[in-house]
C-alpha cells in the first residue's frame, strides 16, 4: 500500500441473479483526494458504493483501509461507519420526522444523567451547521426544509462522524448552482483536512471543477483511472459511452433519409416542475427521434410527460393538430401512443404473470374490461409475436420473470406492437441486452418508421442512435438544449453537444 492511500478495493466481483453487476473492479482512494466515480446507468457505480458501505455483500475480492492490518468486509452500514466510511446517498437518508439536530447525532447523542442532553445536542448542532455555513434551525424537523438543505444536513452528519472516507453519491442532483458551490467549498475544506472523498455524479462540469482523479466504470467493469487534468472532456464521454475516441471518426451515420411528412405530435413549452424544463418538440410521421444526453439529463422525463406517465404542469400538447389534455397513460394509449419504460423491472414487466398475459395486457386494457379477448385470440397473438420477435421462452405460459433480460424486453415490445400504436416511445430498449438482440431491436425500430409510425428512441449508446435516428434532441441538466438534424449527426457532434462547454 502506498503511504497516502486510504482505501483500496481489489478484484471486486458481485452478481445479482442473472446479472454480473461488478466484475474484477479495482478502486484506489488517496488521502486528501476528491475522486470522481463515473459511468452510465448500469455501469456499476451504485453497486460498488453499496458493496463498500456494506449495504450489499460482494462475492470475491478485498477491501483494505489504511490503518487496518487485514481486509475488511462491511456487513452493514453500521460497520462501515465504524471503519470510517461515511456516505451521503442520492436519495436523502434522513428521518423526516426528527429534528435536524437529532438527524445529525442519532445513535451518538450527547448524554447527561443517563438521558439525552437536548440542550448540548442542539448547541453542538448549531455550531456544526455554522461551521459549514448552513443557516437553519437545528430544532426544526428535517421535513420542513428543502431537499437541498436536507442534503447539506446529511453531509454535515457524515462530516461530523470524522470520516477517513466520505462518499457522496450524486449529492448535487437536487441542488441549485449556489448550493453546489457551497458544497464544493465544503468538499475542498475537507480535502485539506486529509479526507478522501468519493464523488459520484453525472455532471461533467462539476467533475472538472472539483475532482483530482476519475475512475470510469462501464457494464460492471473498470475502464480506467485517470487524472482529471489530463483527461479531455470529450475523451471522458467516449470512455463512459464505450467508444475509444480514435475509432469515432471512422463510423458514418447510416440513417435513411426521410422526406418531411406531416406532424404527428407537437409539444409546445411542455414541462413539469422539478423533472423537465418546458420544451418544444415536433415529431413527424415515420420519423425516429433520438433523445440524447447523460443520465439524469431529462431524456426519460421529456418522454414521460408526453405519454402522461408524469402529468405535465405547463405547456400544450397536440396530436394530429388537435389539442389534447393527457392526464393518464390510458388516455395516451387511446390516442395511439405506447411507452416502453426505462426501468424494465420496476415499470415494465409484471413479474409473476405469464408471457402471454404480459403481451396481451395493454391491448386488453385498451379494449376495455368487459371485452375480454378470447383465449384463442390471446394465444394466436402471443404465438405470432414469440415467432416474430424470436422470443426465447419455454412456452407462452412461462412467467416472464424466468426469461432473460433481452427476452423480457422483447415481450414488452410485443405488448406495445400489439396495440398497433402510431407513436411509440422506447426508453433504453437495448440496455442489458446481448448484441444480437440489440441489432434486432434496432432493425425493428427502422421497420416501424418505414410503416409510417413515429418513434422516440432513447439510448445511452451513440452508435445505435446514429443507426436509427433521423433527428436528435440533446438534453442537459433537465433541459432540451438543442436539436441535431440528420446531416449534422455524427459521433463527435453528438458527444460535443452532450458534453457542452468548450473543454
Amino acid at each position: 500500500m502506498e503511504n497516502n492511500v486510504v482505501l483500496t478495493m481489489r478484484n471486486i466481483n458481485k452478481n445479482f441473479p442473472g446479472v454480473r453487476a461488478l466484475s474484477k473492479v479495482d478502486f484506489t482512494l488517496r488521502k486528501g483526494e476528491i475522486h470522481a466515480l463515473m459511468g452510465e446507468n448500469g455501469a456499476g457505480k451504485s453497486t460498488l458504493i453499496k458493496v463498500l458501505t456494506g449495504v450489499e455483500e460482494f462475492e470475491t475480492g478485498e477491501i483494505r483501509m489504511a490503518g487496518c492490518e487485514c481486509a475488511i468486509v462491511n456487513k452493514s452500514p453500521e460497520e462501515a461507519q465504524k471503519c470510517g466510511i461515511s456516505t451521503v446517498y442520492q436519495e436523502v437518508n434522513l428521518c423526516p420526522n426528527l429534528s435536524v439536530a437529532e438527524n445529525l447525532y442519532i445513535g451518538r447523542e450527547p448524554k447527561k444523567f443517563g438521558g439525552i442532553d437536548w440542550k448540548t445536542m442542539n448547541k453542538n448542532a448549531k455550531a456544526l451547521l455554522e461551521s459549514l455555513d448552513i443557516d437553519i434551525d437545528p430544532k426544526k424537523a428535517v421535513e420542513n426544509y428543502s431537499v437541498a438543505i436536507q442534503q447539506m444536513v446529511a453531509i454535515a452528519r457524515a462530516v461530523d462522524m470524522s470520516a477517513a472516507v466520505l462518499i457522496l453519491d450524486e449529492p448535487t442532483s437536487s441542488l441549485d448552482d449556489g448550493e453546489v458551490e457551497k458544497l464544493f467549498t465544503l468538499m475542498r475544506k475537507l480535502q485539506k483536512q486529509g479526507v478522501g472523498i468519493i464523488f459520484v455524479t453525472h455532471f461533467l462540469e462539476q467533475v472538472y471543477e472539483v475532482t483530482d482523479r476519475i475512475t470510469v466504470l462501464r457494464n460492471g467493469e473498470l475502464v480506467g483511472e485517470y487524472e482529471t487534468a489530463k483527461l479531455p472532456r470529450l475523451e471522458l464521454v467516449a470512455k463512459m459511452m464505450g467508444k475509444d475516441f480514435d475509432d469515432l471518426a471512422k463510423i458514418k451515420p447510416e440513417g435513411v433519409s426521410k422526406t418531411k411528412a406531416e406532424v404527428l405530435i407537437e409539444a409546445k413549452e411542455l414541462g413539469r416542475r422539478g423533472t423537465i424544463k418546458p420544451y418544444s418538440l415536433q415529431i413527424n410521421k415515420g420519423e425516429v427521434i433520438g433523445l440524447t444526453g447523460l443520465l439524469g439529463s431529462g431524456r426519460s422525463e421529456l418522454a414521460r410527460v408526453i405519454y402522461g406517465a408524469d402529468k405535465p404542469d405547463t405547456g400544450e400538447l397536440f396530436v394530429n393538430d388537435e389539442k389534447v389534455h393527457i392526464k393518464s397513460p390510458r388516455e395516451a394509449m387511446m390516442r395511439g401512443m405506447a411507452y416502453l419504460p426505462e426501468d424494465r423491472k420496476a415499470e415494465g414487466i409484471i413479474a409473476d404473470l405469464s408471457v402471454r398475459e404480459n403481451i396481451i395486457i395493454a391491448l386488453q386494457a385498451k379494449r376495455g374490461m368487459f371485452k375480454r379477448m378470447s383465449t384463442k385470440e390471446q394465444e394466436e397473438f402471443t404465438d405470432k409475436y414469440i415467432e416474430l420477435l424470436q422470443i426465447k421462452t419455454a412456452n407462452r405460459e412461462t412467467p416472464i420473470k424466468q426469461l432473460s433480460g433481452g427476452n423480457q424486453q422483447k415481450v414488452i415490445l410485443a405488448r406495445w406492437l400489439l396495440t398497433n400504436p402510431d407513436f411509440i416511445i422506447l426508453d433504453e430498449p437495448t440496455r442489458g441486452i446481448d448484441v444480437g438482440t440489440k441489432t434486432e431491436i434496432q432493425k425493428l425500430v427502422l421497420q416501424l418508421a418505414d410503416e409510417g409510425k413515429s418513434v422516440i428512441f432513447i439510448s445511452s449508446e451513440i452508435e445505435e442512435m446514429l443507426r436509427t435516428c433521423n433527428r436528435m434532441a440533446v438534453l442537459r441538466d433537465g433541459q432540451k438544449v438543442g436539436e441535431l438534424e440528420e446531416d449534422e449527426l455524427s459521433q463527435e457532434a453528438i458527444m460535443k453537444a452532450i458534453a457542452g462547454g468548450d473543454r
Partner: protein
Amino acid sequence: MKDKSLVRRITGHRLFMPLVCLAIVLLANLLRQPDFFKITVKDGTLYGYVIDVINRGSELVILAVGMTLVVSSSAGTDISVGAIMAVAAAICCFILSGGQVSVNEYANPYVLGVVIALVLGAICGAWNGFLVAKLRIQPMVATLILFTAGRGIAQLITNGQITYIRVPEYKVLGGSISGLPLPVPFFVSLAVVILAYILLKRTSLGLYIEAVGINPKASRLVGIKSSLIIFLTYAFCGLCAGIAGLVASSRIYSADANNVGLNMELDAILAVALGGNSLGGGKFFLMGSVIGAYTIQALTTTLYAMGVSADQIPVYKAIVVVIIVSLQSEELRKWFKKKFATKKVVESEVA
C-alpha cells in the same frame, strides 16, 4: 427422469399444498374417529360429519372468495367482513320484521330484505375501498373502522335486540330442502364461486387484479386504473360478506348482532393463506382459497368433535396461521437457504 418430472409437476401444482393440508386434517380424523366419513341418507338428504363440514363451511367459502381478491389487489386484508355480515343480517331481519322483535310472517317482501342487505354489504365494502384506493390508507387500518363500528351499527339497526324471523321460508337459505341431497348453503357458496369465476375469467378483471397486485406502476403504464380495480375488489368483498351474513342469519332465523360472523375474519384470511395465496398480493388461486376454507372448517369441526369448546378453537387456528405465514416469510427462506448452502459446502469439502 419422467417419473421425477411427474412428481414435480404434481408437487409443484399450486393446489398441491392446500390439498395436502386438507388431506392431513381428514386423515387425522380417520384415525381418531372412523365414523367421521360415515354418511347417512334421510329423506333424500345426506347427513354426516363431512356433509356438516361442507354445510358449515359455506359462509367461509363465500368470504374467502372476496378476501382472495382484496389480498391480491392490495396486498392487504379486509378485517371488517365479520362485522359486515352482522350488519347485513341485521338490516335484512329489520326489514322483514318491520321493526318487531319477533315475527311469524314477513312485514315486507323477502326479496326487498335480501336486496337491501346485499346493497348495504356492498356499500360497506365500497367505503373500505374508498379509504384504501382513494385515500391510500393501509387496508387493515381502513377496515379497522368498520370492524369497530360494524357490530355497533348492527345493534343500532336491531335496536339491541335479537330479531327473530319465525317464517319457515326464511330458514331455507341456511337449511336444507327435502329431496336436495346437500344443504342449501352449499349451493349458495357454489353460486358465488361460479359467479366470481365467470366475473374474473369471462372479463379481464382477474388479469387486472393480478397485474395491479403485482406491479401497480407497470399496470398504470399499460392503461389500467389501479385505484378503480382496488376499489372494486373491496366492494365485491363487502358484497360477499353480505351474502355470507344472510346465510348465517338464516341458519339461526334471526339477527344476533354480537355473534353473526364472529371471528370469521381470521378464518377468511387463514383460508386465503392456506390456499397458497401470498398475503403479499399478486397472483391468486380462487380454488385454493375454497379448499383452504373447507380445510379450516374441517379443522373446526374436528376440534368440536374432539370436545374442544368453541372458545378454545382460536388457539389452534392462531398456531396454524403463525406456521403458514412463517413459511411464507422471505426472511425465513433466505435463512434456510443460507443454512442449507453452508451445509452443502461443508459436505462437499468433506467428500
